[in-house]
């Protein structure tokens, strides 16, 4: 889809609450913007975001057109095990973007 910026701490202690921040490039076309010929630019937004970590979807969001272009999301999760943090964005055209980060959990 496009460029994404993901901020996941590389290390954490077990049980620690970590903050994950994610920014992805997307126009988030609302469907309410008129084109020159009077018709509207068709809606195209990222409607769904998910974060999968340690075998479970730990966070998800349903986005609506009132979310800014290049949507930014910040949320928290408990560091449970070392492994992969998967972030997935899905837009109205069915395009999926996935970003992966690795976290090492100690203790």
């Amino acid at each position, binding site marked *: 889809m496009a460029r994404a910026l993901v901020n996941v701490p590389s290390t954490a202690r077990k049980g620690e*609450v*970590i903050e994950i921040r994610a920014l992805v490039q997307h126009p988030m076309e*609302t469907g*309410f*913007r*008129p084109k020159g010929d009077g018709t509207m630019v068709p809606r195209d937004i990222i409607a769904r975001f998910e974060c999968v*970590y340690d075998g*479970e979807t*730990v*966070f*998800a*969001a*349903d*986005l*609506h*057109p*009132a*979310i*800014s*272009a290049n*949507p*930014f*999301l*910040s*949320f*928290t*999760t*408990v560091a*449970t095990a070392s492994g992969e943090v998967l972030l997935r964005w899905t837009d109205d055209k069915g395009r999926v973007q996935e970003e992966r980060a690795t976290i090492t959990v100690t203790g």
Partner: protein
Amino acid sequence: MTGTMGAPSRRGILGLATGGGVLMLGLRPAAATPAGMEAAVRAFAEGAPIRPGRVTIDIPVLVENGNAVPTTVTVESPMTAADHVRTIALFNERNPLPDIVHFHLGPRSGRAKVATRIRLGDSQTITAVARMSDGSFWSATADLIVTLPACIEG
């Protein structure tokens, strides 16, 4: 509305002008209203009572650019398996649609704190509603002034 001679009076023309203004307003794209937001909030709560409290919205009171308004919502909750926040929803009064975003959390969130950037089409009141694991609903509102609204182009 017309004088005795059948010519339109000054008052009548002024009245027409006002009527025309109302008509033009009616031609703008459909906008959410405070009533529309109420309906969206009620639909989210599925009829359950919504109590004020436990939810905090951190949003600028004076917004310079309505295209990207940093918004943080925090909910007081222990976030354990027995007692946690399930969903946090944000609603607005004056954008074309009342919904902004729904965040789905769980006991593995650790803390009920989420942040994003939203679009606001006008000065208005924002409402955040949290659905807890015990089925209760809590809410908070924030009033803000937008100097440069989103969707102003075109």
